[in-house]
């Protein structure tokens, strides 16, 4: 891969990746770049989508793949759930079950449930159950 940096006085920072098709190497590079910009990389068919974490409701591991849920769409991502949890914890992402990471900023309401569990209503009206184990971490994060 050829890397070229052009310095121009007064130019706005811009990064263009020119390639025949987005492959694993490019995806990895995008993830690295986005670790700086804190964006979530998702796929839509042959397109790669860069998502603002604020637009993400939650991410879920389903059938050997991780999916990113926004208010409008569900997109697969190559990122692992643990990676999303780690990279975006400072932006309000928290593990709420073995297979789900939720964006606290997109939780509309919380309800205490039996056995120490919490039921979270997401902005789109969906309800998710947070088990006692993960509820403790959520309580701690909220009270920080």
């Amino acid at each position, binding site marked *: 891969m050829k890397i070229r940096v052009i310095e121009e006085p007064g130019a706005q920072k811009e990064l263009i990746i020119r390639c025949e098709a987005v492959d694993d190497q490019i995806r990895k590079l995008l993830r690295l770049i986005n670790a700086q910009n804190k964006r979530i990389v998702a796929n839509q068919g042959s397109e790669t989508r860069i998502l603002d974490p604020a637009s993400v409701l939650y991410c879920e591991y389903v059938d050997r793949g991780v999916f990113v849920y926004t208010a409008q769409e569900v997109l697969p991502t190559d990122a692992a759930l643990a990676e999303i949890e780690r990279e975006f914890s400072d932006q309000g992402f928290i593990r709420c079950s073995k297979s789900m990471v939720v964006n606290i900023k997109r939780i509309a309401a919380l309800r*205490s449930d039996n056995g120490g569990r919490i039921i979270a209503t997401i902005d789109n009206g969906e309800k998710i159950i947070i088990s006692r184990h993960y509820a403790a971490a959520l309580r701690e994060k909220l009270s920080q």
Partner: protein
Amino acid sequence: MDRFKQLYVWAMNAKLFMGLYFVMLVALTGIVTAIFGGNSLGLLSLLEMLGLSVIIALLQVVLLDSHTDYSKGILFSRSVIWVIFSTVLIVVASIAFKWFAGLPAWGPYLLAGFILIVLPGMLLGLKWEQETDTVRLNADLESFKSKEGVQ
């Protein structure tokens, strides 16, 4: 190992309720006995109450724990079944195991009356606990969002 942990936590929850119901049974049976002029409970009766407490707690965990939403009230099909079934069990056990031997025959029914007040009271306590926790959780959520600049 995960299965074992789940089972352990489930059993621990059941044991907490079991302890509560054992204290309730001993106290209420003691009160009924005292009302009729008695002054002691047999050791065997205490063991029987302990066994019965295990059954009532397990019934609660099975019938109510993972399905319960107390926000709309404490009396619904599963909770009513639990209260009635537990009360019947206690009355049958108190008669079968002669907890009120030598005392008037309506002792078990007086105990049932107390149980019918105490068990829904327990559910009411759980409901209030949930409501208080929900208010606190949502206050913390709002505070978190405002700190993070979320509208």
